[in-house]
Structure formats: C-alpha cells, structure tokens
C-alpha cells in the first residue's frame, strides 16, 4: 500500500472553521498581525539588542477599496523562509532557532486570521539576516499563492497589505482599526504608530505594572481599574509571580459575588492583550478579585483566550494567592477599618481561605462574622466579657434546616446557637474546636436544644401528665413524641423539632407514597443505611396560656383533635410539607372542631 498521497486541505473551509470556532471574532486579525510584528522585532533584537522596534499601521480608505498596511522593522524573511512559513499552515518561524518563550505566537496560524477579513494578503519582506532582493508573497483565500523576488532590496522588516473583503469593510475603517490597535497593543513595549490621511499618532500607553506599579499611587491604580472594568473598586493591590513572570494589579470588588461566579481577568501576554475574560488566574478562594496582569511566561492555548492548565499556571496562581494573603494580613495589622469593610462584603472567600490555610485561619478567625440565633456575631465578640465570656460553651448546628427550626426559639431564651449550615461555617467551627481545645465547642441537634428549656417542677409535671401522655399516644403514628417544657416566647404553644435523620425519614416516607414495589424496597434499604436516631419531638410550652387551658379541659376526644391540630400548625410553621395521613387530619380535624363548636 502506498502512503505517498497528501491530504487536500480546503483552505477556505479551514479559515471558516478558525473564524467561527477558534478565534473570538474577525477583530482578532489585528491582534495576530500585531503579534507577528512584535515577534519579528523580538527576533531582530536577539541579533541586535540596540535595535529600536517600530510597527506602523496605515489605513487607506478610497471609494472602491479599503486597505490596511501593517509594517514592522523586525527580522524579515528570506525567500526560502517565505516558502517554508507563509505557505504551510501550522509551521511557525518561532519554533526553530530561538527559545519559544521569547515570542507571543507559536502556532503558525496567525497570518491565516487575516483571511477572515481579506480575500488576498500581500506580504513584502526583507530579511535582516541575508542581504539581497526583497521577497513578495501573495496568498489568496482559495489556497493559492505566488512568490517573486523584487528588483530591489528594502530596509529589513515586513509589510503586510490587506484589502477588505466584501462584507468586512467595517473592520478597515480608521476608527475601528485605531480601536483594535489600542485594545490589543496599547501596552506593547515597541512603538506602535497609526497613520491616517498622512497624520501619524502613537498608540502606546504605560502599563500600570511597568515598574511593578511602584510609580503609581493607589488612586491612580484605582482609576485605571475603573477605566478598564467600569467598577469603583474597594482597593488595588500590586501583585507579582516570579514563576509565571507575572506582574499586575488585583482589585477588590465593591460588591459580594457568588463563589460560583466566573472570574474574568484582563490578561496581557508579553504586554499584548490576550483576553479580557481569562479564568483561573487567581486561586479559587479569591473570587472577589479582578485582575489586570501581564505574563511574560505562561503558555496561551491556540485560541489565545486562556492559558494552559499546567504546573506553571498552578504555581503562578499560588504565588498570586500569596500576594493577596500578604495584603489581607497587612490590613489586619494596619488598616482594620478597611479590613472590616472587606470582611463584611467578602466574608465568604475569606472563610474559604481560612478553612484551607492554618496561618490565615489563626489570624482571621476571631473577626469573621457568624450567623447565630441572636444575630450576626464574631468569635471575638462572643467570648468577650460583655457577651458570654471566655468560658462560654459555643453551640452550633451543622444544618441550615435545623437552624431554621430553632433560631427564633433559642433567641427568645437568650441562647446563642451558631448556624453551621452556611458554606464553610461548620468547617471553621470544627477548626476552632481543634485549634483552641480549652474552649467548649459542640455541634448540637435541634432536639438537643430542648434540653436547654426549663424543666417542669414536680407539681407542674403532675398537672400536665395526662395531656403529655395523650399527646405522645396520638402522635405516635406520625413518628413524633411529646414532651412539656417551659420556654419563650410564651405565645408559642408548641415547637416541632426533628433531627437531621428524622427529617430525612420524612422525605423517604414522602417518596414512598408514590413509589412502586421495587423502589419502595430500595428506599427502605437506603434509609436503613442512614439509620434513624429517634422520633421527631413536639414540645408543649407550659408557659403558653392555651396549653394551660387545654390541661384543664376534661374531654379526651377534643384533646386528641386539638393535639393533632397543634401538631399540624407546628409543621406548617416549619414549612414542612404534609404527608397524606397528615393532610387527612387537616380535613377531619378542622371539620371535627367546627362540628364540636356548632354542637356546643
């Protein structure tokens, strides 16, 4: 079998593919041409470090055609290089003699992007390495090209001429071209000139990281952030990473964001804009940060809109994370007011970091706010003399649902229960217990709370005996036990509490109502793996006048009805959906009561 045949490549198809899927849009032609120019200058400066690089862009608009010339005074190409690099897709001139790290481009597909806006590209180039005649290369979108030697030699460098293809004229207007050059190239280290109607202007601007951000005041950095992101940030932090050769500015967002929100950072590669929405430049916990950074080392992907997820990027991220940590630590020591403001807004990411980082945890834990049954409180406040004192027991529930069940009642008793149901909070409280073993910190269940309610005296127990016994019996079929205690607020007649597993069992029973035999059995067996640590509890409040009156009534039938209705009411108050048997009480119980009163 002969393997001497080559694939035929349909260039216009490839270009359509690139423009639709690889590149963000036709605008990237400007980025790719600038990049080629910068790389050519870099190559020439490796031969002659004193060489002053310039890229000149000229826009020529006439009635019948719109043309752009992009000219650089870089290394240029010889005739054989033109054949080798301009006519072979995927062949990059930057993969040979020089280290790839020196260049922005490396895939050999940059010039192709010009076909997205132009049907024909003309390149005239003069090599700085080999004197001789200049070379002209004309390539067409149909995949054909021609090369010829010109009669004369020119100054070294490359000129690329593009003529707008039908429908793409908008990318060739003076305004658009200027916008694109500024967008991608305003921080480039070489001079970028734009010539329109004979007027030449420079588009270069100093980058905020040009000297490690040292010469810019904090306000100037914030102004720059406002210009770039349109946001009045809380603070600006100069950041750097030696590994990724990264420098730039991190900004603290002035509003809270979700941990799941996408981090969009503006990232430059060797001072050319790579993308305005690069993800993954900072550690996951730093989702309250937006950055503008330049890297001279990280590796971009072929679409040039993100970096490769490799060890280099991971290490860089860790170093940027260290900068942010140092900043927060510095605030803790010198700018508490600013830190408090940041904590109020961004306690979530700060808690996320505290869970992961011991040193950070020790530094910040006392200032982080926790939700409790008596409002938001920090550990510093909780253990202070004016609150509960350094010897106080800290109780927390691990589950949001449990907290919801007990918060108002615990609050009314002046009992402070921490909500460990929020992201990171239970982890942090566990760590507090580990870090400060002398402190009594314990996770409790909603049912444990009842143990803190005031017990009935002997006489009171005798008084409530019959009612509690009956309630216990009536509620047995709902897997709920009854008990009488004294608690505030006195207006609340009953409190329904269920442990996490009892709540889970309710959901199992609810699913079983509609399940077939197979799934009914599976649910039973899955539920047995969870285990049930007991019944739910209905606590009757002996301080409540209604309960006291109920004790005095001597009518068992009425008692049963009322107990069921009180049970239902406490379920509804807790937003528990009713099972079918509970729904029956709602109907029968209410009707029964109506009948009873009408009968009276």
């Amino acid at each position, binding site marked *: 079998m002969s393997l001497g045949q080559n694939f035929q490549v349909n260039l216009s198809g490839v270009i359509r593919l690139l423009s639709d899927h690889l590149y963000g849009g036709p605008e990237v032609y400007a980025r790719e041409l600038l990049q080629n120019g910068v790389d050519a200058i870099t190559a020439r400066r490796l031969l002659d470090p004193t060489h002053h690089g310039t890229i000149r862009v000229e826009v020529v608009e006439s009635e019948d055609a719109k043309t752009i010339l992009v000219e650089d005074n870089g290394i240029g190409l010889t005739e054989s290089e033109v054949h080798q690099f301009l006519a072979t897709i995927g062949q990059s001139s930057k993969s040979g003699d020089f280290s790839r790290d020196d260049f922005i481009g490396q895939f050999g597909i940059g010039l192709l992007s010009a076909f997205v806006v132009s049907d024909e590209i003309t390149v005239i180039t003069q090599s700085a390495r080999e004197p001789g005649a200049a070379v002209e290369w004309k390539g067409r979108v149909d995949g054909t090209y021609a090369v010829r030697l010109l009669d004369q030699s020119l100054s070294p460098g490359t000129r690329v001429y593009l003529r707008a293809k039908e429908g793409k004229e908008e990318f060739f207007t003076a305004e658009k071209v200027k916008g694109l050059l500024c967008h991608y190239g305003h921080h480039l280290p070489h001079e970028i000139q734009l010539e329109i109607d004979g007027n030449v202007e420079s588009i270069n601007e100093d980058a905020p990281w040009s000297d490690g951000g040292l010469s810019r005041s904090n306000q100037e950095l914030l102004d720059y952030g406002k210009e770039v992101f349109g946001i009045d940030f809380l603070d600006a932090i100069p950041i750097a990473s030696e590994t990724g050769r990264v420098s730039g500015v991190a900004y603290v967002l002035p509003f809270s964001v*979700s941990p799941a929100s996408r981090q969009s950072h503006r990232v430059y590669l060797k001072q050319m804009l790579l993308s305005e929405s690069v993800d993954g430049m900072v550690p996951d916990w730093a989702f309250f940060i937006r950055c503008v950074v330049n890297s001279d080392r990280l590796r971009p992907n072929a679409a040039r809109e993100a970096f490769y997820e490799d060890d280099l990027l991971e290490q860089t991220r860790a170093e940027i994370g260290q900068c942010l940590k140092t900043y927060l630590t510095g605030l803790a020591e010198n700018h508490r007011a600013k830190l408090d403001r940041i904590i109020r807004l961004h306690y979530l990411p700060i808690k996320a970091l505290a869970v992961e980082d011991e040193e950070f945890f020790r530094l910040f834990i006392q200032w982080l706010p926790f939700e409790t049954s008596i409002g938001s409180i920090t550990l510093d406040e909780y253990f202070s003399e004016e609150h509960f004192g350094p010897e106080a027991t800290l109780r927390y529930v691990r589950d*949001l649902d449990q907290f919801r069940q007990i918060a108002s009642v615990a609050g009314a008793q002046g009992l402070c229960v921490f909500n460990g*149901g929020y992201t990171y909070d239970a982890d942090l409280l566990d760590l507090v217990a*580990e870090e400060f073993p002398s402190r009594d910190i314990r996770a409790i269940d909603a049912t444990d709370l009842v143990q803190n309610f005031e017990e009935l005296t002997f006489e009171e127990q005798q008084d409530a005996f019959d009612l509690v016994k009956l309630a216990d019996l009536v509620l047995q079929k709902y897997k709920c036990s009854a008990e009488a205690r004294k608690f505030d607020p006195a207006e609340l007649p009953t409190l329904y509490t269920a442990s996490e597993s009892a709540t889970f069992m309710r959901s199992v029973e609810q699913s079983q109502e509609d*399940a077939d035999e197979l*799934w009914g059995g*599976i649910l039973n067996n899955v*539920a047995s793996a969870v285990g049930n640590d007991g019944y739910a509890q209905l606590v009757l409040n002996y301080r409540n006048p209604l309960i006291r009156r109920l004790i005095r009534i001597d009518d068992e039938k009425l008692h049963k009805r009322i107990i069921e209705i009180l049970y239902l009411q406490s379920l509804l108050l807790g*937003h528990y959906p009713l099972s079918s048997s509970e729904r029956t009480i709602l109907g029968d119980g209410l009707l029964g009561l109506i009948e009873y009163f009408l009968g009276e």
Partner: protein
Amino acid sequence: MSSDYSELYERLYQSDGREELAIYEELIRLADSNKDLPTAYDFRSAYCSRACEEGFPEKGIVAFSWCLAQYDKDPSLDDPYNLIWQYKVMLELIPIFETVTRDQIIKMQEDMAKRLAWMGETERTAHYYRSWNLMRMGDYEKAAEFQETYLGMTRTGMSDCDACERDRQVELLVRMHRDEEALQKGKTIMEGKMYCGEVPEFTNGHLVKALARLGKEEEATKRATKGYELIRRERKYLGTIGDLMLITVRNRDFNLGMRQVTKHLPWVVDSAAGELKYRFLNAVALFFEALSKDKPRTTKVRIPRELACYRKGDSYDMGELAAWFAEETRRYADRFNQRNGNSRYDEMIRDNREIAALD
C-alpha cells in the same frame, strides 16, 4: 414565580455544599406546599444531581425515586433522556449501599434496560451497567465479559464519556491484579490526555494501587499527592481518599496521614454509603496500625464524638484505635460479602494491607 422562590433563588446562587442542598430542600417544601408539581419536579431533579455531586447519594436517591414515580404517571414532566441520565447515576450509586440487596440492584438495572430499549437504544448502556454492577459485587470475570461486549458495540448518546469508560476498564484490571495492563490502559489518563469531570479523580485511586504493587514508588507517591489535591474537598471521593491514603501509610508519612484522618473522619459520621466508608475506614485502620508500630505510645487524635471509639480528653492508644477501625471495616466487609455472596471484601482488606506495606 412567587417572591418566596425568588428570595430562595438568590440565596441558592450564593451558596454551595450543604447550604445549597438545604436551600433546595426549602424550595422543594415550598413547591410541595403550593401543590406545584412541575416546579417540585424540577427542584427535586436539580437537588438529586447536586446531592450526588456533594456526596449525599442517599438524598439523591430519595429525590430521584419521587421524580421517577411522578414521571411514570405524567411523562410530560421531563425529557426521557434527562431522566435516564439521572437513572444512570442512581445505578452507579446504588451498589455502594450494603443494605440494598443484590436482587434489588439487578431489578433496577433491568428496569433501566427496559426503559432504554423503549427509547430505541441498543443494549450497550445496559451491558455497561451490568458490567459495573457485577464488578462492584465482586464478579470480575462476568463483569469483564460484559465489558468486552459493550466495548465491541457502537457508542450511543446514552454512553458515558470515553474517559469514564476507560476509568471502568482500569478499575476492573486493578481489581483483577492485572496491574501492568491497567497502567497501559490508564496511560492516556495519566498523561492528562483523557479526562472529564470525574477522571482522573476516581482513576487515581485505582492507579496508585497498581503502581504500588509494581514497586513504582515515586510514581505512586506523586500520583497520590496530586490526586489528593484534586479531591480533598469533595465528600463524594471519600472512598478514593481512602485508596490514596494507602500510599500515605505505605510511605509512613504520619504527618500527612494524621491531617487526612482529622480532616475526613467527620465525613464518615454523616455518610450513608457503606462502600465509601469501608474503603476510608480500612485506610484509617491501617494508618493507626502503622503508627502504633512506629510510635507505640498514647497520641492525641481528634475523633468525632459520634464514633463509639471517642474518648474524652482526645488521648488514644494507637493499637486500640487501630483495632476499633479494623473491626468497623470488617463489619462493613461482612455485610457486603453477605450481600454479594462472595468474599471479595476480605480480599480487598488483604490487598490493602499489602499496598500499605503491613504484614
């Protein structure tokens, strides 16, 4: 959508982990109370996926069962493809509960096979799960036969991704001690060329065993370290964390081991999935055993109060602790062996001792 929903939605967006699940539970309660069946279905369906992702498969299974029953009554509630995708996840999770019987697993697998056939699917996916369940229940030879069958069939829209399928092949080879072949099969995963949301996360747990058995110490350590970094915050990988900890024990890295035990032991308390607990508890038992041999003295360890071995004061004799965890591991092994009708879980305990370099 009522304002109650909107407020909860806002909180949902800000949350993750247990908090997110609690908000979903509240949304479900609200939809149930409003008798809003389509919304209750959508919330449960989303909750099911999130609960499984967050490492609470029992909650996911309960929600799925409800969805399935409602769907069977009113198929307009969901796209059948969505439902079957969730069914696939359930089928993957169900064998890790030792309380679910072999008969129930087979019936569930065949129920899904019928639904797939009804949708015009080939038997490939059904065979895939037959192989999966047989592997988890210790019948490796038959699992390999089904694997060969489905690999010979054309993939369909219901097939798992390439990376997941490759992971299953690697796992079966490692379970069968065909370590060289496992490494060969897992090469593209190890090189990072084949990956998905759960690969190499799961695969690392299998590969470290093969690497250790072949004496590739450095590679095993490197893979265990990197693998642990990837999954240390995710409860659903509790079993894999146990697998990776075998290398910690093998290396007698007591500092790392103690950190791993302290961080993940609380997960055992509220985990219902016996197989994940078994794998982790086994690694903990081996860790304490190795520690007791190296440092035979009382040591402070943070053991959750809920575990019966908890002692006030936090000081423990390492040998006693090792024995307690070994006994717990055995308890799970016995239940799985009884369910599966073989003694594979005893074999795994022996294998793990060898990997942890304990005789």
